[in-house]
């Protein structure tokens, strides 16, 4: 597929119908928006980041103790922070509220996608919620704590909370579509409007068409043996707008709906498993065998000849070892699977 993780296209099945969207779809949509933003001079101050950023920030700064040492090693998060807090850019992403309860007493939050942003130039935290109606959305305390702590590492400027324009959902399945639309609208307000509640199904289908078109174009380029995407091609690819839907794209979508994946490159192995199934060349099977102390819960290794596993297991590719065993393991011969 044409996205960073190159997953087969059927993994985007949740885009169809009234299915709840998963991380795969959300991140693919964000990746498309990111490409569109890159080719839009008016959106040059926008950074689009995948949904994992918020999870990482919550891990680093949302707990009782901030993980300063780990943040110091987390280069990619620090680079984003520099662009926002030093460069005055605006970060836009989507967060999942499953582990972000709305109230302090709650253990878990909703399975709900919300748009989140940080506006470095105007010192705003941006937040929207498709469930809030006319009420002002409230950022989950853990998320706000994480954003505040992240900001405090880079600037003493006080940030306020600003509400993002977002479609209010009237069903029980379209928070992901609303969140994606809100991010698109904030990134490129001159191009994308906030979708209306009665147009969400249309917006969902347009999103699928864009994703499929992107995949198709990527595969065509790959089949044409074009090693590098030229600037004009990249621009064409990222400029697909709602009004630019072509007939070929529509037929492509229908093909996918019918269960046929027409975009497999010639000669490629066809994926036949269910979504999320093991890929066609997977060779891993059976449990990993423990070596060393029985009490060592994190010891997991297959290096020792005495513990040589089945040929179809993991030996030869990698082993999992504790830090203490790492140095010892370095001295041992690395087994190769024939």
């Amino acid at each position, binding site marked *: 597929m044409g996205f960073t993780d190159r997953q087969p296209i059927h993994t985007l099945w949740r885009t169809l119908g009234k299915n709840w969207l998963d991380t*795969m779809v959300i991140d693919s949509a964000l990746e498309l928006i990111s490409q569109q933003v890159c080719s839009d001079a008016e959106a040059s101050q926008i950074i689009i*980041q995948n949904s994992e950023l918020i999870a990482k920030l919550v891990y680093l700064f949302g707990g009782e103790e901030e993980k300063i040492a780990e943040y110091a090693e987390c280069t990619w*998060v620090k680079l984003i922070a520099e662009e926002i807090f030093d460069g005055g850019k605006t970060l836009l992403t989507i967060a999942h*509220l499953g582990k972000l309860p709305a109230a302090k007493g709650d253990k878990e939050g909703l*399975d709900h996608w919300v748009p989140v942003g940080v506006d470095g130039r105007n010192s705003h935290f941006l937040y929207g919620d498709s*469930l809030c109606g006319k009420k002002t959305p409230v950022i989950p305390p853990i998320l706000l704590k994480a954003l505040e702590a992240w900001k405090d590492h880079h600037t003493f400027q006080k940030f306020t909370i600003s509400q993002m324009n977002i479609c209010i959902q009237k069903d029980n399945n379209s928070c992901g579509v609303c969140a994606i639309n809100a991010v698109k609208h904030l990134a490129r307000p001159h191009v994308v409007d906030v979708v209306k509640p009665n147009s969400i199904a249309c917006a969902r289908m347009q999103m699928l068409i864009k994703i499929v078109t992107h995949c198709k174009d990527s595969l065509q380029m790959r089949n044409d043996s074009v090693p590098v995407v030229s600037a004009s091609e990249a621009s064409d690819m990222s400029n697909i707008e709602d009004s630019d839907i072509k007939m070929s794209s529509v037929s492509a979508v229908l093909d996918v709906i019918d269960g046929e994946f027409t975009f497999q490159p010639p000669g490629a192995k066809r994926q036949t498993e269910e979504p999320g199934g093991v890929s066609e060349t*997977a060779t891993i099977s059976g449990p990993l065998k423990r070596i060393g102390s029985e009490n060592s819960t994190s010891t997991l290794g297959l290096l020792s000849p005495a513990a040589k596993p089945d040929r179809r297991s993991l030996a030869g590719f990698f082993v*999992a070892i504790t830090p203490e065993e*790492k140095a010892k393991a370095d001295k041992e011969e690395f087994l190769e699977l024939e």
Partner: protein
Amino acid sequence: MSEEDQQVPPTEEDVKGDNTPINVKVVSSSGEEVFFKIKRSTPLRKLLGAYANKVGKQEHTIRFLYDGARVAQTDTPKSLEMEDNDTIDVMVEQVGGCSP
């Protein structure tokens, strides 16, 4: 020119070799760490499978992030230019739709 002069000193890559194993730290979203030793040419799909097996989760419910970008199943440490003791973040696949 003498024979000795024609000898090109080995590069770092030559010394390392393409398949020299490297140590990789896989960190879950709750901070738990698992260390792996993996060849540079081994697809990270296999590492994902091993990690899922180790933590008792299904492969499709987790995903790897390296330097903030999603890792493709066909990526290798070599293709991502990973170095010894680099960290891979594990993220859990989430689903959301929500009832009003």
